[in-house]
């Protein structure tokens, strides 16, 4: 057998591949986890926008799964929510926020049979009072601990509605179950997340009431977290990740069809739903310190967390990477 016939081509291939391999070795690698919601799907674009860093973007079912992977050191960067950030700090986990991503995405929907005009909080309050007087529970649903839960609770409190006394809160953990709950008349009101909100409205299972953004937490939703050991060992790579996030945000802000495309691709949803959902999404890489503190306070008040994490929330917002990526001082980045 002529060994040279096999060995020489293999050696030639290796010689060709080696420079490529060594280049790939040069670029630091970051494992990035993101959840598969409408807000979060643009994170899947970060690898193609990354420069000087190789991003391995991994999709998780929920932000909690991504956070668990981060704190157990299975990934380096995770896209979660501000609520996850406060929860992680409350548990004493080493997490550092390095960028925002997309905000918004919450919508309050009403059962079709309720005669209330969109945004008419006065009528909604009167209806809730009537239910109470009649001894009927006014059932309000959300996925407990989601950004939409906090947004809704904040908006209700601002309007003088006590969610513990005036209404009956129903936790529907999976937002994909919200549609059926409304369709079957099992709840009167839901605060849900995109793209489910659009899906519910397009299916005519409920009607739009309003956005729950008029409260201390504003419309804050997503946040990019890492750990201090990753910052210490790989600061350049993290800077590359934040640059990629900023670029992706600019891309989807300027090109809505691109966002629709990515939502549709990652979630498998109909494009009509994705088109409706993007109207309620706000690509924004800034980190909002004051609203983040408000969320932490609300979570303590709601007993979602045990301790006061305000100081840690403020301390662990690291603006360095965002400053480097945007060329702006932190005072212009939400600090």
């Amino acid at each position, binding site marked *: 057998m002529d060994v040279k016939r096999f060995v020489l081509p293999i050696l030639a291939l290796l010689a060709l591949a080696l420079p490529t391999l060594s280049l790939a070795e040069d670029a630091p690698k970051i494992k990035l986890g993101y959840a598969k919601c409408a807000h979060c799907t643009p994170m899947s674009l970060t690898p193609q926008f990354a420069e000087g860093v190789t991003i391995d973007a991994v999709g998780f079912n929920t932000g909690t799964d991504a956070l668990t992977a981060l704190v157990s050191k299975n990934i380096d960067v995770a896209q979660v929510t501000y609520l996850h950030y406060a929860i992680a700090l409350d548990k004493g986990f080493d997490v550092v926020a390095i960028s925002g991503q997309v905000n918004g995405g919450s919508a309050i929907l009403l059962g079709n049979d309720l005669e209330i005009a969109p945004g008419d909080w006065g009528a909604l309050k009167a209806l809730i009072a009537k239910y109470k007087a009649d001894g009927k529970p006014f059932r309000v649903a959300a996925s407990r601990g989601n950004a939409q839960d906090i947004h809704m609770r904040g908006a209700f409190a601002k309007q003088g509605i006590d969610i513990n006394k005036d209404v009956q809160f129903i936790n529907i953990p999976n937002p994909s*179950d919200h549609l059926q709950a409304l369709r079957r008349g099992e709840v009167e009101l839901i605060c849900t997340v995109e793209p489910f909100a659009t899906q519910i409205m397009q299916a005519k299972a409920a009607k739009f009431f309003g956005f729950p953004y008029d409260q201390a937490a504003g419309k804050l939703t997503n946040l990019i977290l890492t750990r201090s050991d990753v910052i210490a060992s790989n600061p350049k790579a993290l800077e590359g990740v934040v640059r990629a996030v900023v670029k992706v945000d600019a891309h989807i802000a300027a090109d809505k069809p691109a966002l629709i495309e990515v939502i549709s691709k990652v979630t498998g949803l109909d494009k009509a739903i994705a088109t409706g959902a993007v109207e309620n999404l706000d690509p924004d890489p800034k980190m909002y310190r004051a609203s983040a503190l408000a969320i932490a306070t609300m979570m303590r008040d709601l007993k979602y967390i045990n301790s006061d994490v305000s100081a840690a929330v403020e301390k662990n917002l690291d603006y360095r990477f965002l400053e480097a990526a945007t060329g702006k001082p932190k005072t212009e980045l939400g600090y």
Partner: protein
Amino acid sequence: MMALAQLRKLDRYIVPVLVLAGWEAFSRSGALPAALLPAPSTVVWAWADWLVGTDGNTQTYSGHWLADMLASLSRVAAGFAIATLLGVSIGVAIGWSRKIEVVIEPTLQMIRPIPPVSWIPLAIIWFGIANKPAIFLVFLGAFFPILLNTIHGVKTCDRNLIRAGAMVGGSERKLLRYIVVPAAMPSIFAGLRIGIGSAWMLTVTAEMVAVKSGLGYVLWDSYYFLRYDLVLAAMASIGLLGFCSDLAIRFVMARVLHWQRNTTLRGGE
């Protein structure tokens, strides 16, 4: 000799004690953040608060264990009871009648490999939210082990016994009642024991579906808030209740199958 016998009784505790001690030591070693892998003592502390409300560390769940346990138990009991009723009756029918087997079994065998969790969307469409879809999912988990074991039990019934019954004039109904079903009982009980385990396993999945109480619900909700101590306490609670349910079935089995005592390997135990 007495001391040796007592030592043998302690054998069963050696592995659990070693596992718990190793876990406690590892958790306290600082190799992982304590909140990520809570030590058994931390889990017990959270469990105690969940059980009787010691210091309120489990927040809204403080002192609610009994209510959560009863909520899960009622769902498991309902789902398991329906699964037993349908699994045994359909299983006997399939095992006994070739015609019924041909008509029903292919469909059931096609449905069987579908993971119960994938039924969630349909369960919600059919039954809405709250208890009914959860009971349906528990039923699905328990039904197939009971069904298959019943079919096996009926099909492996000794033909000579049936012949003998027929020879003394037994009708088909009587043959089923007095020969086939009793002969299939060991298999049926094996199915019930596997089924109750599956039912408890499915509780966690079932309680993802818009229920407001239960051990599975607490497990999911606690995971969302990274309360791993409570997650582990919920897991331990489910394991404990599964163990107790199995003991209850074994207790009934020992009475129903008293004729097996001393006739089978370890039948006298």
